[in-house]
């Protein structure tokens, strides 16, 4: 039987793993139990929204239902080959390899995933060391004290004719520095323990604010209905521990309330069902700026927009002010992203909406439509240049999506393997053999 005709069997298998009865699954996706039965016995073809709904209820990737685990493995092998840069890899025989040696294929696939995850960890740490002023200061303190101890100890050990006065002075310095080193090391460890080197921790207010927004999936029903005001919501959140993070969240939530008032949820639901994810049509319908429409789309709940939408905002210096990640599109934590992103291109073409299909390296299945615009911030003044901010919506598109081929873009130069890129501003740490 052809691979895609077994979709029903896979749904049945996954439903049983999930411990759901046919009737329960049918109820949750809004169809009859008898129809689910026909689907599961491969007597009805299934695709589109119903397939997505079933995958959502079963908490699996839709591709796993349509193509099966073997196809996912083959895709992972091809991605591993592309990531490795080994052109001699027989990618056209990945199917055969996965079929003959499924265990080894799984090992290879997991190793590749682990490399990707480690690369992201490297990027996070590298960013942190470079951009986190508190950590930089702390490391500087430790290294400077260690240097002083090393130099002083070497003088004491290697200088035979040291006068008593010098010897006493260096002993005193050693005592001072060893205490300082103990204190600064302790402070550094405490800081790292509390920081986001772990999955949950947050080191800086911006990360704390982003974690709060992510925990709410960017959507706040109590603000939509006016039940709460943004300042009270930020102030009462237990997830926001620092005043700076609360302040960042307050600003974001106030803007959220403004956008929600201009583009009410029910009306958004209506227009999205008519025109789809078309920010220009939405901006025209509500007479708002395109950047406001982009922001609003990124706050839609999953019952309005099933797709996980990402959003990035930067100022004219390129510093990232806001990030709402979407799976597969890597966003550096502290700015210095890829200058090829439409987000940055838009800065050189103010007020002109840009739409571009892009793909990042090593993620051949992750293709995104990015819609970006840079618009002036604040009221206009005579003889004063406007200050621009750029906003970019990131819409995931399926690997089989038709249309223009994606433009290759990076994450940040530090972890980008594209050595010949004209936009490169520094060598890749991966290339340096990190």
């Amino acid at each position, binding site marked *: 039987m052809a691979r895609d005709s077994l979709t029903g069997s896979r749904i049945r298998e996954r439903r049983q793993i999930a411990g759901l009865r046919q009737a329960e699954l049918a109820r949750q996706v809004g169809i009859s139990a008898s129809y689910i039965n026909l689907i599961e016995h491969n007597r009805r073809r299934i695709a589109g929204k119903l397939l997505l709904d079933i995958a959502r209820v079963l908490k699996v990737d839709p591709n796993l239902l349509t193509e099966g685990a073997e196809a996912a493995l083959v895709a992972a092998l091809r991605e591993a080959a592309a990531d490795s840069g080994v052109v001699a890899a027989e990618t056209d025989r990945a199917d055969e390899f996965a079929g003959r040696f499924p265990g080894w294929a799984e090992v290879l696939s997991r190793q590749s995933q682990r490399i990707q995850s480690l690369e992201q960890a490297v990027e996070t740490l590298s960013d942190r*060391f*470079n951009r986190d002023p508190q950590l*930089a200061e702390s*490391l*500087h303190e430790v*290294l*400077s*004290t*260690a*240097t*002083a101890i*090393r*130099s*002083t100890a*070497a*003088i004491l050990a*290697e*200088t035979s004719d040291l006068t008593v006065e*010098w010897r006493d*002075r*260096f002993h005193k*310095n050693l005592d*001072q*520095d060893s205490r300082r080193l103990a204190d600064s090391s302790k402070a550094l460890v405490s800081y790292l323990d509390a920081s986001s080197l772990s999955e949950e921790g947050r080191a800086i207010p911006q990360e704390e604010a982003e974690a709060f927004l992510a925990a709410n999936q960017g959507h706040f029903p109590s603000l939509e209905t006016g039940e709460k005001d943004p300042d009270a919501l930020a102030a009462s959140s237990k997830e926001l521990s620092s005043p700076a993070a609360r302040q960042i969240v307050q600003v974001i939530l106030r803007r959220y309330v403004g956008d929600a008032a201009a583009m009410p949820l029910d009306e958004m639901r209506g227009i999205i069902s008519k025109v789809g994810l078309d920010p220009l049509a939405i901006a025209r319908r509500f007479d708002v700026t395109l950047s406001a429409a982009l922001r609003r789309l990124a706050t839609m709940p999953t019952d309005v927009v099933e797709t996980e939408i990402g959003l990035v905002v930067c100022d004219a210096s390129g510093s990232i002010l806001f990030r709402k990640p979407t799976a597969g599109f890597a966003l550096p934590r502290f700015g210095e992203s890829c200058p090829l992103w439409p987000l940055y291109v838009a800065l050189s073409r103010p007020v002109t909406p840009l739409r571009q299909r892009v793909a990042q390296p090593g993620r051949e299945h992750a293709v995104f439509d990015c819609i970006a615009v840079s618009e002036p911030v604040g009221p206009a003044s005579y003889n004063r240049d406007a200050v621009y901010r750029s906003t970019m919506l990131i819409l995931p598109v399926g690997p089989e999506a038709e249309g223009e081929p994606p433009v290759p873009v990076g994450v940040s130069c530090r972890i980008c393997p594209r050595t010949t890129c004209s936009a490169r501003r*520094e*060598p890749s*740490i991966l290339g*340096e053999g990190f």
Partner: protein
Amino acid sequence: MNRHVLLVEDEPNIVEAIRFLLTREGWQVDCHSDGSDAVEAVQNLKPDLLILDPMLPGRSGLDILRDLRALSEFENLPVLMLTARGQSRDRDMAERAGVSRFMTKPFSNVEVLTAVRDLVALAGRA
């Protein structure tokens, strides 16, 4: 006449150790810990060698170095930079600013003395 080094570093015990080492090597050592008037200190003292920490109170060592290289009198002054930040981007920035030798903390006394001797030898040949 003793050769003259100016050490611009805000870590007092590093200053003490380097001053001791260089004095024993026959150098006259002046020390300065504030970045804000370090360029003036170099102009006044006219050292044969400058040892510079890039992270100083008042002003960054990189800015100090850029200002010095813009002055014809100091465009060839040997400058040894001692830094806790040793990533390739930091080295690259220091080289762009005109550093003669870049050394990351924690360094050994031997490494500092070797670097100082090398820089003096190079300056002598220039």
